[in-house]
């Protein structure tokens, strides 16, 4: 079976997010007064072949932790979906 894993990596609370801070400065200058906070993270999409969802989740979490996240500074969230037939064929 084929799965899509979405991994969202964000700066941990309290860790400086220079891109978010700079975005805020520009967004305010462009007149978006009601924007209070911007945080910038990574969004990684991974296609995985696995026998079941559990397995795919395990692989995705491993990748998230080992490769995509710097555990000192970042946290991550993983969500896994089975790919629809159509999507698979499309490839």
């Amino acid at each position, binding site marked *: 079976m084929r799965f899509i894993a979405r991994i969202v990596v964000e700066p941990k609370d309290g860790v400086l997010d*220079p891109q978010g801070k700079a975005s805020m400065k520009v967004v305010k200058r462009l007149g978006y007064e009601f924007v209070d906070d911007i945080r910038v993270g990574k969004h990684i999409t991974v296609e995985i072949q696995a026998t079941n969802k559990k397995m795919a989740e395990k692989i995705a979490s491993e990748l998230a932790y080992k490769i995509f996240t710097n555990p000192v500074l970042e946290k991550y969230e993983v969500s896994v979906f089975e790919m629809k037939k159509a999507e698979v064929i499309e490839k």
Partner: protein
Amino acid sequence: MLDHKKVGISDREYGLIKQILKREPNDIELLLYSAMWSEHCGYKHSKRLLKKLPGGSSGENAGFVKIEDNFIVFKVESHNHPSAVEPFQGAATGIGGIIRDIIAMGARPIALADSLWFGPIEDSQSRHIFEGVVRGISSYGNSIGVPTVAGEVHFDESYKTNPLVNVLALGVCKELKSAKAKGVGNSFVLVGSKTGRDGIHGAAFASRELSDDTDSDRPSVQVGDPFSEKELIEATLEIIRLPQVIAVQDLGAAGLLSSTSEMVSKGNLGAVLYLDRVPLREKDMKPEEIILSESQERMMFLVEKGKENEVIEIAKKHLLDASIVGETTADKNYKLIWKDEVVANVPVESLGEAPDFYRKVEKADYVEKLKRLKIPKINKPVSEILKKLFSSPEIASKKWVYRQYDHTVQTNTVILPGEADSAIMWIKNSKKGIGLTIDGNGRYVYLDPFEGSKNVVFEAARNLVATGCKPLGITDCMNFGNPEKDDVFWQFEQSILGISEACNSLKIPVTGGNVSFYNESTSGRAIYPTPVIGMVGVIEDVSKALTMSFKNTADYVYLVGRTSIRERNIGGSLYLKLLENFVGGSIDTVDTEYELKLQNFILKMIDSGVLNSAHDVSDGGLLTSICECCISGNKGIDLFFTENIEELFGEVQSRFVITVKPEFTEIFEAMAKKENIEYLHLGFVRSDFRLFLNDKEIIDFGSIKSLYDSTLNRWMEEEF
């Protein structure tokens, strides 16, 4: 009540604090002492010895040398421990920190150099650190537009879990700014990024205890923001031109606390700070967190009272925060106010007077033991040894690294990384150039801390001389193990004495530096004692700057200086380490008088245009140096020389490989004789890329070049 031992204050120190205050310190006060009396800020183990260095440090943020009316400000700093925890951010913030020391002097940063030491490249964790550190330097340095023009990279077991990341910054200005506060009632204006809970080491831990805060572990690694740093550079250089700006200081270790307390100490004044006026990035920060925060990209200005607005306007223009956070006082106390309450009040001088932990220690016994080890004889063909050396990341080209560093921004770089033994930066609107090199050798210093350290200084000088630059001054970064251990402390003392002696004989000052102790592997083994020397020099006419590449076919190749090795003294040579994993024996030592004569001679020859190339002979010995000249110039050589392995690869001091145009050889030889400089005619430059030794082609030279070019790439880019 906080336990003083938990914040690194010994019973003895606690007693001292009580004596100073004539009462018990409160928790915040205790944390102030804990930070300021830490090894990092207080130099407890090193301050007495550092005073032995010639030229003494200026007591300002960085030292300087002068080239005509230009102040050349430079300093090196370590970021070893943060880089071990988080290679990318550790190295990036290292760049940020040293740059702020330069702008605090009023200088525009024009160059960076880096000295990097990692575990073996075969080890994947070491590669991970290497990769992260290089990316960190590249991402930060490139973004702020300061070229990284020189450096060195080493790999050795000794640095496996404790990499060394030393970065040097150099700036130029016509007028210096001071960190010394003057006048009572003047305002501290904090400019830059907002303050968050970054890097509050002991304090974060302690305050959590204090308040029973069960928050998840706060990361102590700081994140660099190169964009804010770039704006901080521009804002600072603009702000210091205002006449009402009295003093300026960067915020480094111990943040607001060390910057403001040092400023007023220097000026014999006191300070009061209103911590609730500091712009914060996070909610609910405690006063002790604010005063100790090591958030990056901040500077402190002391400004005449009532004239702060212009400063604040400049900061705003550069999208930075700015606010008045305190003022100078006459009473020489350091007072912190939080929500209208005095939360700390201590004599400001006492913060800078950490106890002196100097002690007399005996010579370490490992030294004699190693000295007695017999230097192994190697019975391998020259070609095989060459292959081994050139496939080692120690010798191989570092292009993989410096290609990631912007080394041409600012359009001053006359000699680029890889072209010669040091970089040369043009001083615009003049003919002059600044030479810059950074150098260390852990093996030499380990085997003989005194002579080894001397060698490192002289080698740095040779690096400059080979390009035509006269040495002017050094900055040193002392990377050592735990100073509480006798062997380490002895190494440190000997090393300082060795550096002093070398600088005295070169008649150049140590303008400043940095000490990094507690560099140990996880198993508690100290790293090789590794003093890193950053040296700055001058070339009067940059158009005469010389590179190491062989240039013209049929040019004469000479070895100048020590023309033969002393076989007993080739301990510490790289080939022994790489082929036999041998680190022992005696190292060669510098005969000062001879060395100086040799350096002057080379400088004179370069200035008179007799030489076509020059390269100092160091790691890997004579044949390695020759090969480097060939590769760099895409030329070959007809070499006539002994085939003795020790002569070809053994390392001794005081020698250069140079080339001379055929029409100048007579002059050259006559001059050398006149000055009593030894030389040996080694052979001729070949037009094709081939290596002949005594008329035999000993190796497919192309394969050496490809090893040289590809080794780092292979380790870092290919799949393993």
